[in-house]
């Protein structure tokens, strides 16, 4: 068998068309991926920078959560200072029960109520994973006003 008849008989047209398509698909996909590869690598190399930026954005979002206004009394400020010192001795983020236990251990006044006030004032902020961190910006703002 020869000629067009042979090509049709052996499914030649389909094999050729599909073959060319597969080769093109493979190389076009590969060229697309490698054209984006260096962009991906730039992002990977600057990942720490991006994580920081994202973290800042995240903490800003937290700050926008409406906070209960706490009357900045002398006793509240004193408690905030004491807890600030205490939290500095712990790793960030910290566990709230641990903080209260430490506060009880060193005989701080009304630890539960103070922690509640600090939470309400936005000085202690949840990290969304069950732990908390101290918001230095809010702390500085409060004590700058003073």
């Amino acid at each position, binding site marked *: 068998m020869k000629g067009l008849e042979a*090509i049709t008989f*052996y499914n*030649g047209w389909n094999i050729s068309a599909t073959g060319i398509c597969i080769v093109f698909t*493979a*190389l076009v996909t*590969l*060229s697309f991926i*490698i054209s984006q590869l260096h962009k991906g690598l730039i992002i990977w190399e600057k990942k720490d920078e991006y994580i920081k930026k994202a973290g800042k954005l995240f903490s800003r979002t937290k700050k926008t959560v409406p906070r209960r206004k706490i009357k900045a009394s002398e006793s509240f400020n004193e408690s905030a200072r004491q807890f600030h010192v205490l939290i500095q001795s712990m790793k960030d983020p910290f566990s709230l029960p641990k903080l209260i236990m430490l506060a009880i251990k060193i005989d701080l006044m009304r630890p539960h109520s103070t922690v509640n006030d600090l939470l309400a004032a936005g000085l202690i902020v949840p990290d969304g994973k069950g732990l908390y961190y101290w918001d230095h910006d809010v702390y500085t703002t409060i004590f700058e006003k003073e």
Partner: protein
Amino acid sequence: MELLMDFFTNTGFALADYRNFIMIGIGCIFIYLGIAKHYEPLLLVPIGFGILVGNIPVFKGLGLGIYENNSVLHYLYLGVTQGVYPPLIFLGIGAMTDFSTLLARPVLMLLGAAAQAGIFITFLGALALGFSPNEAASIGIIGGADGPTAIFLTAALAKDLIGPIAVAAYSYMALVPVIQPPIMRLLTTRKERLIRMEEPRTVSKTEKMIFPIVALLLCCFIAPAAIPLLGMLCFGNLLKEAVVTERLAVTARTAVIDTVTILLGLTVGASTQADVFLTPKSVLIFVLGAASFCVATACGLLFAKFLNLFLRPKINPLLGAAGVSAVPDSARVVQIVGQQEDPTNFLLMHAMAPNISGVIGSAVAAGVLWSFMM
């Protein structure tokens, strides 16, 4: 006297016929082209010498011929028929190749894909001339201009044709500087040949290390039958780019590839015994192989011109001719033809991108054809 006559009947002079002398002449031409004309000497000299070895007539049954089961040549030839040598050559090629230009300008990869159209067009031509689908696929792959790939696919699909197909593939690879320039001039204008390419961007080491892994996974997930060739090519390249494996890379690109090239060239040459090789089929294979090579070159050039309809800045369409995977000869030819128009235009570095993608493309095409024929 009788003893002497017996001895004479067993000599090559008594056993030879005119076909042996034709093949010995061809072998000598190969050696001449390799040594005197510097056409792919690393391939043509071993093949040419192999043709001489294979065409010395020997007494059948002594275990001397390449097609006799217990001969040394037969054992060496197993590397060809079992598809062992081509992947090892790809390992060496991978360890030699720098993919920087390809990574810097990925769009040039499409030229390597376009040139593979020649393979499939020749496949149709071979079917039309009465070859079986397996034989037609093996003949078509000559258009990939990649000797190891052609041998690999032929060993899998049409073992009987290894000799003529391998010789045709390597001959046309060696004749790249003769075959391609007229087609390049015919299909491009002077203005197009004068186009200068932009400086490629700098490619990071990490990109170069990731590329072989991405290329392997992607291409072999699409065409798993390409694993033996692409797997070794990418592995060799990873050894080179990883730096910490430099010793292995050096071995792959020197000792391994050189040893395998010697064995492959010699045994492929020796497989062209006159009675097996000088047939009407072989003549047709040579004609189709030449056609395949020309069509592949033309497809690459025309696709480059097509891309220029959309690309800004335009690419020099001569680069399309480098889409056939004769590395680095077709890239060198692009450089030469480009410099004939403008001696200050350097295209070699840019031509390496489609040239290398042609290697990947022809390996994928071989994998695709193999899977279709199984």
